[in-house]
């Protein structure tokens, strides 16, 4: 049973550039959530996708956008990168009807220079 996978593992970008991160949910899951985790902090919720639509959004600017595909995989896009966007980006999947435990991927480490 495949767990949550994310790509790439690490990424280095320059300020002002754009980045796309990818996530494949655990087999059978239909909901994908994205989190940003700065060093030494807990994960912060960015947004959640279900049925290819953004269902809920945390306190993140419009530079952060996403997409969910018919196969439930998802992308996180960040435009106009800032130094403060450097973080571990986590994808989590779950089932909308429950149980409500979220399965997290290993994350993508983004460094903005």
């Amino acid at each position, binding site marked *: 049973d495949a767990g949550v996978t994310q790509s790439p593992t690490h990424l280095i970008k320059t300020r002002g550039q754009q980045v796309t991160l990818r996530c494949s949910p655990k087999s059978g899951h239909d909901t994908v959530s994205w989190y940003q985790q700065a060093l030494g*902090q*807990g*994960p912060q*919720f960015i947004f959640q996708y279900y049925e290819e639509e953004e269902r809920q959004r945390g306190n993140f600017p419009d530079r952060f956008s996403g997409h969910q595909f018919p196969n439930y995989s998802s992308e996180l896009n960040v435009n106009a990168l800032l130094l403060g966007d450097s973080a571990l980006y*986590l994808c989590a999947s779950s089932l909308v009807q429950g149980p*409500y*435990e979220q399965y*997290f991927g290993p*994350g993508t480490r983004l460094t903005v220079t």
Partner: protein
Amino acid sequence: LAKTTQPISMDSYEGQEVNITCSHNNIATNDYITWYQQFPSQGPRFIIQGYKTKVTNEVASLFIPADRKSSTLSLPRVSLSDTAVYYCLVGDWRDNYGQNFVFGPGTRLSALP
């Protein structure tokens, strides 16, 4: 979502039982309590979830008093591999639009030889 308070850090010797307490004074009637474990540069991993009294699985126990204003995660016979950050989360996951998990700073557990 109910705010949670946990100790920032704890030390425990190998082989001992460790208890991490989380305060959630404004927990709502429909809220569940969930604990996650996170190792460095990895995504959080679900440990246990409960609503009231006691829940036990193969890795931990969760004790919830009658007033539900706190909960205690108990790890029996700590090993060095239990060194990680532990997060307590509270929320009503059954709400279709409430699956965003609010992570606090967590408790950094250090298992000592």
